[in-house]
């Protein structure tokens, strides 16, 4: 009698277990996807807010925070007309700011270096060709035009920039290779020279 009940209960449990496991799998998958999807969503949404802040900064000639608690502010807009892409560049090369847009690294003028993620804001770097124009519009002044000279692949810890170039230089850097999903030691650096 009791044996039968246990057996019945066991069978029901045995039937429900795989369903439960499969449902858990679905949930796990969904949460993973959500964790992944939030990154480009944040990057995209932030640029809209930043665009507004950039316009205000232009008008007021001083950096305006895109949202009250932000620890970064727009400093310039870069655009590659041939590819039809543009992005608002943020001050301070911290990983935090990089989630929202390209950031300006601390360098010595006349060299400017901007870094952004290869799978969000700087995904377009793989399509940039020598001869392309890059326009940089700072919040304080006139648009500067840079012509792309070439690209290099370097290790993150083996990078150096000329201290005294003949013309102002702009470097856009991101991780390399573009397709990889793991973090690696290589960086892709596009060099451009002021027109």
């Amino acid at each position, binding site marked *: 009698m009791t*044996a039968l009940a*246990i*057996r019945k209960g*066991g069978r029901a449990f*045995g039937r429900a*277990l*795989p369903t439960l496991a*499969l*449902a*858990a*799998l*679905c949930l796990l*998958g*969904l949460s*993973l*996807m959500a*964790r*992944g*999807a939030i*990154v480009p969503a944040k*990057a995209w949404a932030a640029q809209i807010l930043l665009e507004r802040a950039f316009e205000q900064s232009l008008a007021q000639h001083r950096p305006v925070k895109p949202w009250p608690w932000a620890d970064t502010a727009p400093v310039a807009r870069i655009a590659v007309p041939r590819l039809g892409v543009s992005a608002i560049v943020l001050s301070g*090369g911290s*990983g935090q700011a*990089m989630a929202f847009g390209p950031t300006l*690294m601390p360098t*010595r003028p006349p060299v400017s270096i901007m*870094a952004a*993620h290869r*799978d*969000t804001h*700087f995904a377009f770097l793989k399509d940039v*060709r*020598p001869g392309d124009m890059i326009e940089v519009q700072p919040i304080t002044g006139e648009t500067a035009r840079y012509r792309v*000279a*070439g*690209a*290099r*692949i*370097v*290790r*993150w*810890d*083996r*990078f*150096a920039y*000329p*201290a*005294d170039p003949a013309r102002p230089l702009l470097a856009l*850097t*991101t*991780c390399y*290779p573009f397709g*990889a*999903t793991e*973090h*690696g030691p*290589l*960086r892709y650096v596009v*060099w451009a*020279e002021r027109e």
Partner: protein
Amino acid sequence: MPVLFPHRSRSRLLLGLSLLLGVVALIFLTDRLTASEPAVDPDEIGSGTLMLRGKGLATAMPAMRLGTDMEVTVTGQTARVRVTQAFRNTGDQWMEATYLYPLPEDGAVDSLRMVVGQRIIIGHIKRREEARAIYEKAREEGRKAGLVESERPNMFRNSVANVGPGETVLIAIEYQAPVRQLGGEFALRLPLVVGPRYTPAQTPVEEAQAVDAPLAHPALGKDLNPVSITVHLAPGFEPANLISPYHRIAVEQESGQGRIIRLADGDVPADRDFELRWRSASADPTIGLFRQQVGGEAYLMASITPPAGERKRQAPPREMVFVIDNSGSMGGGSMEAAKQSLLYALGTLRPQDRFNIIRFDDTMTRLFDDSVPATAEQVALARRFTEGLEANGGTEMLPALESALIDSRPDDNRSVRQIVFLTDGDISNEKEMTAAIAAKAGRSRIFMVGIGSAPNQYLMRRMAEAGRGTFTNVGTGKEVAAKMTALLDRLAAPAVRDLEVTVEGATLDMTPRKLPDLYAGEPLVLLGKGKALSGKLTVTGTIGDKRWSRTVDLGDAQDSPSVAKLWASRRIADVEAARWAGETEDAAADEAIARLGLAYGIVTSQTSLVAIDETPDRPEGTPLQREELPLLLPAGWDFDVLFHGQEARAGQGGDMQPAEQAEAMDLPETATGYMGPLSRGAALLLVGLAGLALRRRKARA
């Protein structure tokens, strides 16, 4: 039955669960695999740009100017070379200068003299660390000091400290080296430039720095480090067919059989090796016996050339594996020469031969999985493959070597397996290369073709020696046919195998201990040490399937002042070979080398020559500038390929080379990697949904 789960349902449950786990694991695993595949290779791309790490490029003229004079005296089969480097300080600071320069890989440096004004200061041999300490102490005290160190058996570094403004200091070193003999032709090679070495990423930094020097930018012109060369040739016979393939020469007759050879153009830039070749005007000599008596010991050098053998004999079928280097350092003339050499070799394959091609830079490609018969179609395919090669990237030679050493029929005694390497050998992990050969060569024989104007002779020699083959150099495109014909003829002709040497009536400590195979026209060069030189020396071997032997009387040896030092230098090479083959411990080998170096007064990896002026020169408190003299790029090297290889790959690049005067900066982590979790999540969701759908359909049924 009082059980929790019935047997059938339990096993089904387990099966289902484990299947599910398997699928999940597979998703994560494949995701990782596809992710790591591109991530492994680029790590090596990056290292290709680091050929000049730490030292970089010199775009300004150094304050210290250098001129080099080489005076060579060839007596019999040895060459004594005096290299005088004049360091002239054109600046207004007190200077210290270092200069990295090459010497023949079998040369033994035994003398250092420093000339300051009218005074000559003689150098002494000391243990390396001790010599360095003495030099540094003198440098701090403001005294003039000269130091000769060996970074590799064929790469030396001279340092000279406290050269005053406007002052010139001469550093004269002397070395001797055996003259190479091949097919009746004698050759003297004076390396004049060190090619920039590709250092694999995993090499320790100190080791890489040791073989590195800044490179002169082509804009500086070729006036840097000019070299003048004079050769006094006294081979002991009437020399004929004097050839210098890379430099124009002027020949002058000295008394009787002697000749004086000078460079026709006076000083030349140090950007290519100097080579001089000659033959005997009469019959080719087949025996050379030289001896030296020093400190109660007798030394012998014997050079014995076996007969060339019957040329008509059909060569046995061969398996030939060609390994071609298409790394960035081969850019320019070298790549062309290598491709032409390989195409030439492909043309000599017979249908009964089998072959394969492996190309490498920092990646490698095996043309065929295993060697294939040399049919017309396969050869045509190989030709197209060869013609399409372009120089780019770093030089990771070890994987290519290991791949070439894979022998699919190790027990096949009827055919011969030959590996032909075409490379400039500009790598700095020579040790790993020879160790791999020692461990895995088996029946394969390794032949090195040194390409370009300054191939790494030491690597060529050691790899050929370890692989029991020979090495040759192809300098320019014009030489390809002549040199490759000679090499391939030698490979085709039956070799002398199973060589043995016996000495009657005397005990001699002979080197090399492991006797090589000999190819047509090649002499066996033996060096020995013993109490007395008397009795007979017999060499036996197998030519084809016949026994051959030759006996010489040791009493006939001529006196030569350099045999003892050549013996010591050869013995050091033996110690190194044993170390690389893993037969001796590092410490024991170092100690043995240090003792040989001290006993025979020669510069080795463990001993250096140091010369110190007794009186301080530099006024106290005056600062000392240090300068590392830049090297010229070897002729034929393509500066742009070497420095802009990465731009070339990523698109036509500009000249944004961050050269000297650069600011180093760490680049931030710039990948969110959101695609990873996104795709993994999607895959999991898919599996879960599919499973649920399957179960529902089952439940309905």
